[in-house]
């Protein structure tokens, strides 16, 4: 059975979080690091946008700056996400594509299956909803995004513990279609979070996720190596905090 390194929950800023994912992809590819599952949070709160999204279309940059909310472009597709500090747990799983179904949609389902299992352990009737969501009572509680580069799969995603819909609407721009009252209401109805659904604590969620991702894998609990931290710091400066990357669209 393939061994994985599991790195327990830690909080970083948005740029470091994205840089760590990219550095670990490269180090898993080179064989310097084990396939890795990491759990992390965002400090300060941040917005991540998908690799193909136009930053001005998605984010009210003035309001984000005034609120002290960082904005970063991910290396994965998908939509803009508001990551409240302490309001969610983000996971990443990084390993050879050979460890996952070749079919991308199927691989989403398999990896999201670990989150579904964790949520069920918290007493929630969760299910996977293609392409990349997990729903409880038909409301979205988790979204994920995946990329595959040079034979390595990275999937990361969030599980909402608590959220502030009004802040999301304040910071994220919505397209014209979404500004009608009917659709705004439907967005509110489409999202849910752990705290709204049950009495589980954030630590309960962390434990449930660690256990579910460990079910069918050989897990070695570990941390970030000095090289990973150093390389991530370099990537923060050279990529994830640059206008060339974040404002490319």
């Amino acid at each position, binding site marked *: 059975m393939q061994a994985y390194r599991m790195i327990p929950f830690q909080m970083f800023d948005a740029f470091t979080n994205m840089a760590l994912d990219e550095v670990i992809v490269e180090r898993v590819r080179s064989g310097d690091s084990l396939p890795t599952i990491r759990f992390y949070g965002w400090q300060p709160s941040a917005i991540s946008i*998908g*690799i*193909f*999204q*136009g930053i001005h*279309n998605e984010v009210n940059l003035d309001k984000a700056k005034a609120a002290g909310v960082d904005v970063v472009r991910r*290396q*994965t*597709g*998908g*939509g*803009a996400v508001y990551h409240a500090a302490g309001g969610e747990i983000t996971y990443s799983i990084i390993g050879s594509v050979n460890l996952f179904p070749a079919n*991308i*949609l199927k691989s989403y389902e398999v990896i999201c299956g670990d989150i579904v299992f964790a949520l069920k352990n918290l007493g929630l009737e969760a299910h996977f909803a293609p*392409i*990349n969501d997990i729903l409880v009572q038909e409301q979205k509680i988790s979204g994920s*995004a*995946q*990329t*595959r*580069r040079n034979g390595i799969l990275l999937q990361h995603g969030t599980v909402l513990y608590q959220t502030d819909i009004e802040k999301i609407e304040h910071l994220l721009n919505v*397209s*014209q*279609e979404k500004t009608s009252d009917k659709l705004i209401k439907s967005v509110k109805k489409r999202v849910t979070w752990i705290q709204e659904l049950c009495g589980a604590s954030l630590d309960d969620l962390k434990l449930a996720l660690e256990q579910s991702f460990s079910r069918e894998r050989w897990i070695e609990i570990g941390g970030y190596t000095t090289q990973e931290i150093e390389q991530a710091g370099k990537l923060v400066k050279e990529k994830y905090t640059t206008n060339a990357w974040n404002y490319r*669209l």
Partner: protein
Amino acid sequence: MTDPKSQSITRLITRKIPGGKLVQMEITFSDHIENVKLMGDFFLHPEETLEDLVNAIRITSLPFDPFFLTACLDQILIDHEAQLIGASTEEITSMLEEALSCKPTA
């Protein structure tokens, strides 16, 4: 003499693909396509394929044949062994048709 640049039009077309993702096309054109951006929350593996898709749209002569452009975009996906998830080449072509339906006046 009319400055050709003064006839340029920029349009942003936003489309939620049924069962898929949101796709946005920002296009500047006059009697030819001057610039195009393809944006949205769709997935494309490998992501670098987007550059070739956008270039194929940018060099499309006007008026254009939707079936030919869709075939070109499909071929690019094949060449890159790429997968477009949450959007389709037909929808992208259709968005271009919609954008160009507002033609610059002579």
